[in-house]
């Protein structure tokens, strides 16, 4: 079954800064878990290769979704997008880029983030 796409912008504590496409509670849970996974993976890569991850992609076949995780380095935020795999690749790239640019300009316009 192919699910509709969704996306979230999360901070390093797993809190959602922005997002759409799923009920808030589900997005919140996913954000909290995937942030933990990204940071663990990033730590492992750093310890092993002294390098940082610039992009993570994976597919969840049963749901028919393709995931992209893109860090917005300067802010410590991550953009996580889930797009239907039956969407043309060009369109996935375009939509991801659109969301990435939007997140970047949003980060720029954010006032210095509060600690909590």
């Amino acid at each position: 079954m192919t699910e509709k796409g969704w996306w979230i912008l999360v901070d390093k504590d797993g809190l959602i800064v922005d997002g759409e496409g799923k009920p808030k509670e589900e997005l919140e849970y996913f954000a909290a878990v995937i942030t933990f996974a990204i940071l663990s993976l990033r730590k492992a890569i750093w310890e092993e290769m002294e390098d940082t991850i610039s992009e993570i992609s994976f597919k969840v076949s049963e749901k028919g979704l393709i995931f992209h995780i893109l860090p917005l380095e300067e802010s410590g935020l991550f953009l996580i997008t889930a797009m239907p795999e039956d969407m043309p690749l060009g369109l996935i790239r375009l939509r991801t880029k659109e969301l990435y640019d939007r997140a970047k300009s949003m980060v720029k316009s954010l006032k210095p983030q509060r600690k909590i």
Partner: protein
Amino acid sequence: MIRWSDRIATGVPKIDVQHKVLIRNFNLLEERINSRTLTYDNLKELLLFLLKYAEWHFGREEECAAEHRCYIAELNRRQHEWYISRFTELYEEFKAVEDWTEERLYEWAATVHKELSEWLLKHVVRTDRHIGVCLGKLKREEVPPPEEKLS
């Protein structure tokens, strides 16, 4: 099942969201026990996730408490340390058994679920909610006094 309510909320969004992850997965374990859908593999995966997530979450929470010079910071840290070592001990015990029978697996999982989830709930209510007090999210009189006990 642990249900989310104001009684267990610290009022600090990043802490509450991480507590919800732990609670949801302890509830998942309970659900698998009750619906008889537990297997050696899914139990191992769930325990490992809970252990690693708890470890990560405790680190974030300790940073937050220390940053705000919270009066509960040291007790919180010591309780976390105790929990991780107890959880690790249980996980090692689980891996060491080679001949799990179905009955024994269910029995062990139910006991461990009870011990680990009850500790978590008590810890959130009696210790973590004081972080909410330190950050001005809760009033001191809304939170039961902390307990020095680790277990």
